[in-house]
């Protein structure tokens, strides 16, 4: 993983990755979540269409995890994800053509070294909808 430095980042920089939310990936995520949380098994598998939805949806926590991973992969091992939050505005349908995106909206050098970077993070589908939108704040090191 490449290290990202504060000096190399400016507002308008965009990060993007396609996201294929296959039934297998959703099932794997749900199994991992069960193990990590200790919560009982949820009966509806990735194929189930919940009432009120057109098609099977992706768990909200998985969408946020994908956005978090997008940002942490981008920032590098010496970066620090200070916060990430998102607003769930529409369902994320499993078989949509999804992309996870982040856009640098602000940068601020810190007196004590390093710099803060604000990013808008969102999931976009092929219809141009953004079912999940949020904000991440990342701390990046200065170039040595």
């Amino acid at each position, binding site marked *: 993983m490449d290290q990202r430095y504060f000096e190399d980042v400016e*507002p*308008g920089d965009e990060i993007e990755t396609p996201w294929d939310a296959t039934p297998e990936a959703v099932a794997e995520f749900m199994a991992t979540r069960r193990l990590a949380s200790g919560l009982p098994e949820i009966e509806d598998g990735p194929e189930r269409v919940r009432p009120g939805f057109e098609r099977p949806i992706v768990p909200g926590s998985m969408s946020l995890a994908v956005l978090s991973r997008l940002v942490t992969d981008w920032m590098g091992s010496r970066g620090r994800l200070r916060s990430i*939050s998102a*607003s769930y*505005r529409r369902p994320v349908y499993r078989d949509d053509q999804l992309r996870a995106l982040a*856009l640098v*909206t*602000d940068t601020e050098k810190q007196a004590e070294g390093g710099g803060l970077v*604000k990013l*808008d993070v*969102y999931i976009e589908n092929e*219809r*141009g*909808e*953004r079912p999940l*939108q*949020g*904000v991440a704040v990342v701390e990046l090191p200065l170039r040595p």
Partner: protein
Amino acid sequence: MDLHSHSADASDDAGGTVEGYLKWIVARRKRGFRIHGFVLTEHREFDPTVDYSALAEQYGVTVLRGAELETDIGHVLVYGVSPELAKRFDFSSVALPHRELFEVARDTGGFAVGAHAGRPRIGLAHHVHERGLTPDGIEVIEQLNGGSSSEENGRALELAEEYGFRCVGGSDAHFVSAIGRCLTAFRRPITSIQALVEELAGGDYFPVTVEQTQRVDAG
């Protein structure tokens, strides 16, 4: 002008700050996009004491204020919120009577617009086509909405053509990078809420995407 936006100051589903929007617009202008300013239309409220004029002046961007209210025909953007209008309606209600709202807004020096008109449940097209409602008293709809899909904006355009509505555009931004994605092009600069109300009532305007505003000579 972007006629529809929300900030973290007053809309609980928004993550963008007003200063964040201002910085973003300045950055977009440097890339050749023409964004004059925006109207904050927070959900179900209007606080007359809030003033962003110093911040707006600092960044050279016009910031005006309206409200997004919820009615029996979906969401409605109101510009020129007077004390009288605020007294007549409980802005926190999610089912305001739309006919009265559109009428009183006009009578008290304001102007109301049907928000994200193509959106299911919260847009005018749904209520006209699914519930058989007649859109009396409505002249203008937000046809181009940055939070709607192209299909939903297409539905709003069909509604506008069917009823002869004039159309505006707004980003419906809740986060910084969305501000100015959709806008309304006016023939003259809008620098006050009164000027905006006058233009909406009788002026010449049309919705545009931010890409359509880009100067061809910009680097």
